[in-house]
């Protein structure tokens, strides 16, 4: 019972704030709404039993990425200026596109997905298993993607410094 109520609150929060994030007039407000969406997503991870992903989502997204966003907004935005939108016909076309996609995928999910799964096992994931899977080289283990991610992070740091430095 409590799980369903928490899910309902989180789902309503995510839906409302993600729509507000893309329709708000001020860019700093839409960044704040995005922060609430990310926190709601972290709550969903916690509800599904993935405690490690909850921590990663809070630390990386709600911490790092949001700080980057706030800094970028404060550096590039003149105060009191509204967000520019596309022309009205393009906005209507965008709304029709997203509503059509929403209806199509919602139809598929509503009529087909409930035949696919049978049960829920909300088992706790041990952090030891995560570490061993991340560091192993067997089948279904992830050392190679882990190393690729570290190289990607290094390239990303170097690239960001190269792009953003003063000449």
């Amino acid at each position, binding site marked *: 019972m409590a799980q369903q109520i928490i899910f309902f609150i989180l789902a309503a929060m995510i839906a409302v704030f993600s729509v507000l994030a*893309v329709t708000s007039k001020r860019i700093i407000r839409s960044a704040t709404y995005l922060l609430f969406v990310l926190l709601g*997503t972290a709550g969903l991870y916690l509800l599904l039993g993935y405690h490690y992903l909850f921590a990663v989502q809070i630390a990386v997204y709600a911490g790092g990425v949001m700080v980057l966003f706030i800094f970028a907004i404060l550096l590039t935005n003149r105060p009191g200026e509204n967000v*520019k939108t596309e022309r009205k016909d393009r906005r209507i076309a*965008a709304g029709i596109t997203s*509503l059509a996609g929403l209806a199509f995928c*919602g139809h598929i999910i509503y009529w087909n997905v409930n035949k696919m799964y049978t049960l829920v096992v909300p088992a706790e994931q041990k952090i030891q*298993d995560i570490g061993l899977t991340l560091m192993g080289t067997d089948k279904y283990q992830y050392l190679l993607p882990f190393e690729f991610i570290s190289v990607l992070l290094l390239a990303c740091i170097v690239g960001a410094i190269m*792009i953003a430095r003063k000449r």
Partner: protein
Amino acid sequence: MGDLFINFFSNPVPMEAYLGVSLIMFFAGVYGFLSRKSLLMILVSIELMLNAADINFVVFNRYLYPGQMEGFFFTLFAIAIAACETAVAIAIIINIYRNLTSVEVGELDEMKE
């Protein structure tokens, strides 16, 4: 309608509910991507879409293959790649602002000053 509520509150949360939440988030991102002009708003929309995909990975892993960890690791790597992508994109946006004093997509018609 009453049956629906009783079913919802007595059974575990169905998979469709999670997928519906991520669906709304994804198409809000699509709308923002197509209807805004500021590069930062487009980046916000991309973050929304990536988050929706992450939720889908985790939900499919939990409901369909509860003994395995593939969706979990996909989400973990997707979060890392999204952080990289945001850092580079914001560096580019700040550089564009420094050169052109604007971050509107309509005014960016050349990459080199």
